[in-house]
């Protein structure tokens, strides 16, 4: 019963919630600038409209350009299945853990960068090379953080890690988890093209990274790329929400269906909260120079490393 329900619930929640997060962040930014801003559901309308439109593909591009959106989207969607939105439902028993999830994201990024290079536009190539640089800088801190969380829980499966968190209270108040939380937050900001690293609201600017690779896409393929990016953001937010601020302990001991719904409700609140904080950070900072991104990455790695020292060496 639980295993059967897991996949539909997971897919439905992830796919429906992902564009909303972007909408909320945009709305908060607009309000802070005394604008009205687009409606919170704008991205859904955009997707609906784009789905009806045809696609234009450059003549010089190869099959990679056409295949990339599908690979990108499927890889990210598969990775999303490994990051449970609620610990109440047990995931399906296919082998796979956080390392697979991380490298599925890396596969998606690889094809996105290839697609950026494929059309031979100058913007695309620039965006791809920058994206690869940023991802290479952040991968160490992402993996070190996940490994430490895994070591504490004694498993590399994200579901097990989240279950362990539920049992040990509000984990963010423990020093090790707090450090890892900060490290992963920096990774979240950099991976999802948020402001100190990349500006999501710019279009056609020399500083853009993520947008530069999508410039040539249109219609249905653009929907896949955009939805994939939103999903990736939600994956990271889910990770932060469920590992570091576990709330499933509050909903235990009720009927099955009530538990699931309550748990999803708490999850929704956490996601909206994290989106709000991200928006506030975005309002208050400016975009870094590209060559200052290593500083941020070094700080993120240092946080993860300190977590490692706290956990391992000093013992906890």
């Amino acid at each position, binding site marked *: 019963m639980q295993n059967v329900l897991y996949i539909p619930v997971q897919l439905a929640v992830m796919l429906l919630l992902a564009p909303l997060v972007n909408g909320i962040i945009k709305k908060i930014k607009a309000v802070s600038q005394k604008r009205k801003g687009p409606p919170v559901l704008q991205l859904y309308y955009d997707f609906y409209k784009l789905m009806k439109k045809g696609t234009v593909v450059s003549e010089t591009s190869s099959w990679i350009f056409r295949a990339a959106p599908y690979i990108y989207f499927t890889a990210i969607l598969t990775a999303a299945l490994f990051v449970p939105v609620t610990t109440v439902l047990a995931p399906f028993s296919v082998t796979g853990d956080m390392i697979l999830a991380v490298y599925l994201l890396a596969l998606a990024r690889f094809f996105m960068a290839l697609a950026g290079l494929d059309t031979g536009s100058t913007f695309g190539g620039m965006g791809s090379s920058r994206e690869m640089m940023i991802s290479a800088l952040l991968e160490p801190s992402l993996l070190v953080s996940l490994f430490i969380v895994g070591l504490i829980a004694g498993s590399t499966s994200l579901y097990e890690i989240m279950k362990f968190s539920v049992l040990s209270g509000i984990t963010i108040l423990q020093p090790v988890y707090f*450090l890892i939380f900060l490290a992963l937050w920096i990774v979240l900001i950099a991976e999802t093209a948020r402001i100190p690293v990349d500006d999501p609201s710019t279009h056609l600017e020399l500083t853009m990274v993520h947008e530069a690779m999508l410039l040539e896409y249109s219609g249905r393929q653009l929907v896949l790329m955009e939805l994939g990016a939103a999903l990736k953001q939600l994956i990271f937010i889910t990770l932060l929400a469920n590992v570091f601020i576990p709330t499933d302990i509050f909903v235990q001991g009720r009927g099955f269906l009530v538990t699931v719904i309550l748990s999803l409700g708490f999850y929704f609140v956490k996601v909206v909260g994290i989106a709000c904080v991200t928006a506030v950070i975005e309002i208050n900072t400016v975009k870094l120079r590209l060559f200052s991104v290593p500083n941020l990455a070094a700080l993120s790695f240092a946080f993860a490393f300190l977590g490692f020292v706290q956990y391992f060496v000093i*013992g906890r």
Partner: protein
Amino acid sequence: MNHYLELLSILILLSSFILAAAKRIISYIWIFRLQSFLLVIMAGYLGAVNFRKEGDIDILIICMVILVVKVIYIPRLLENTFAKVAYKVEKDFFLNIPISVLICCGLVMLSYFSIFPIDDLREGVMKTYLVNSISVILIGLFFMISRKKAIGQIIGFLVIENGLFIAALLSAHSMPILVDLGIFVDVLAGVMIMGVLVFRINENFESININKLRNLRG
């Protein structure tokens, strides 16, 4: 109880990492202010616990003194000094930031390896406290030698003092109040004198870059 103290000591260590990654003098001053504020919270917490248990208010007095001296007075003094000296945007550090952050990680390891073999410490958590506070001292020292400008070096000195204070506070529930107050007066006088010196360096060399002090040497 130990949970929160540990978290606070980690936060203080984190603020010194952020200091090592900072680039501008204004942000040094702000981070120092933040670190001192965390120190105030820590001292206030320990002071309240102590007051309830034994009824002495020494740590609370010291907490107030830190609030006035380190959170309000010294940062403002430094900001004023900084506003008066000519500000040229130039590179302030010898090593680039990723490398200095990694060196700070190395310093944490160093302090761990020097603290861990001590067997007589009361409990495991004491080792955490000592490792964190000694790391803060070492990072302050490293910050002091890695910056070229005089204000950066003053901040490094103050961070070392913060680290010493945390070490005393966490391992022995603070030093006798007279010693603490004496140290604060020392620091205050030191910072004021250094502020004046920064001013003089700026007047004579039209920059607060201390490399220029070697101009006349062969």
